[in-house]
């Protein structure tokens, strides 16, 4: 079936898409602010500041590029972004180019393992057995109704914008897998529904990295860490801040709580 290719403006396009892709619109009819297309991609590329990247990238308001959706769909190639970053940042672009290399790496792993991207690459290092994890994403997480201001905000942002900062992805994934003990595949599927850069390689393998099925230890965090890199914007208004925040504690305490059966110290 052939689809329309002439539209007066974005509103007309979106109206057409809502009527044409009814199942997708029923899942979530939000549309992202980020525009598709090479012109938009080049405008975003012009804004990158690879020199400031290393020092600020972990912060939610840090100077990250937001190029991921364009790279994922080949609107820009990794090769041209690498070249552009080196021209602009020289030696200081090292960290940024290293992150581009992560995408290249995951792609190569995907080329090698194919559909096994959905299976554990290695056994986990959490002390839990695969059967200890639940299948399927709980509704309160998907509906942004856990009561945890940080996680609910990330879930909302994911659905509305199709983008999350890397650190937010890590925290959210760790919460799903380690605090709620959900199989990583359920979280990975949820992300692929929404992320404009959603890609089985980068996505699933990052989830596995968090879960410890493709790394030497699980990734987890504590409240100090989240507060620091968010300037406390979520904690300040969270009802759980003084009342049962599940992320409060030292790394040792959290390890004992989350992974009591692990036979190694992670730190």
């Amino acid at each position, binding site marked *: 079936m052939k689809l329309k290719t002439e539209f007066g403006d974005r509103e007309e396009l979106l109206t057409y*898409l809502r009527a044409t892709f009814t199942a*997708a619109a029923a899942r979530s009819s939000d549309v992202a602010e980020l525009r598709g297309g090479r*012109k938009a991609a080049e405008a975003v590329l012009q804004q990158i500041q690879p020199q400031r990247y290393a020092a600020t990238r972990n912060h939610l308001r840090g100077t990250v590029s937001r190029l991921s959706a364009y790279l994922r*769909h*080949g609107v820009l190639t990794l090769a041209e972004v690498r070249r552009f970053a080196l021209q602009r940042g020289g030696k200081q672009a090292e960290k940024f180019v290293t992150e581009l290399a992560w995408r290249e790496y995951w792609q190569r792993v995907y080329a090698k393992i194919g559909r096994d991207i959905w299976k554990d690459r290695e056994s986990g290092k959490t002390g839990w057995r695969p059967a200890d994890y639940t299948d399927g994403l709980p509704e309160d997480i998907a509906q942004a109704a856990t009561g945890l201001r940080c996680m609910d905000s990330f879930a909302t942002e994911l659905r509305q914008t199709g983008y999350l900062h890397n650190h937010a992805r890590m925290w959210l994934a760790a919460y799903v897998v380690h605090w709620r003990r959900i199989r990583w595949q359920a979280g990975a*599927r949820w992300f692929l529904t929404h992320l404009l850069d959603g890609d089985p390689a980068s996505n699933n393998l990052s989830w596995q990295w968090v879960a410890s099925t493709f790394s030497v230890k699980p990734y987890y965090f504590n409240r100090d860490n989240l507060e620091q890199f968010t300037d406390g914007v979520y904690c300040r208004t969270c009802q759980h801040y003084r009342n049962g925040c599940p992320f409060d504690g030292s790394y040792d305490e959290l390890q004992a709580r989350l992974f009591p059966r692990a036979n190694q110290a992670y730190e």
Partner: protein
Amino acid sequence: MMNCRRGCFRALTKRMNDVLVWIHGDDLNPQSRVLQAHPQAPRVFVFDDAVSEHYQLSLKRIAFLYECLLEIPRIEIRRGDVFAELVAAAQEHQCNRIVTTESVAPRFARLCAKLRREGRLAVETIPTEPFIELSAQENARLDLKRFSRFWNPLKARALSLNQSFDW
């Protein structure tokens, strides 16, 4: 009479060798190598209903792809079963050869095989410009067990501009 026949036949064979460019979600660059190699060829993208269903894609992902597609001149956008739509497009445009960008997705490899086998179409895949140019030997030696093992031998080259400019 003979001449005409031969002429018509020639025109037909020429047309039947024509290329159909298959645009897919891993390369929506309007300046892609594939489009540069075949600037006159018809180009088709197919929204894969099975994939949308499998990944439960939300509308914003489809809208993003659509906006990318609308910047590709003369793009024909279809939806349905990718194999069936590509075969139909090839027939409509009288093409017997599909040219497309390489992809690591296992589904892509299966589709190419099916197009050759059941669709009776020649399929040529073109790689995008590599992140770092590597020889076949270097490629074979890459260790993918962990990122650091992959990256350490390549790092110096990837961080230098000069080499990349001359390839």
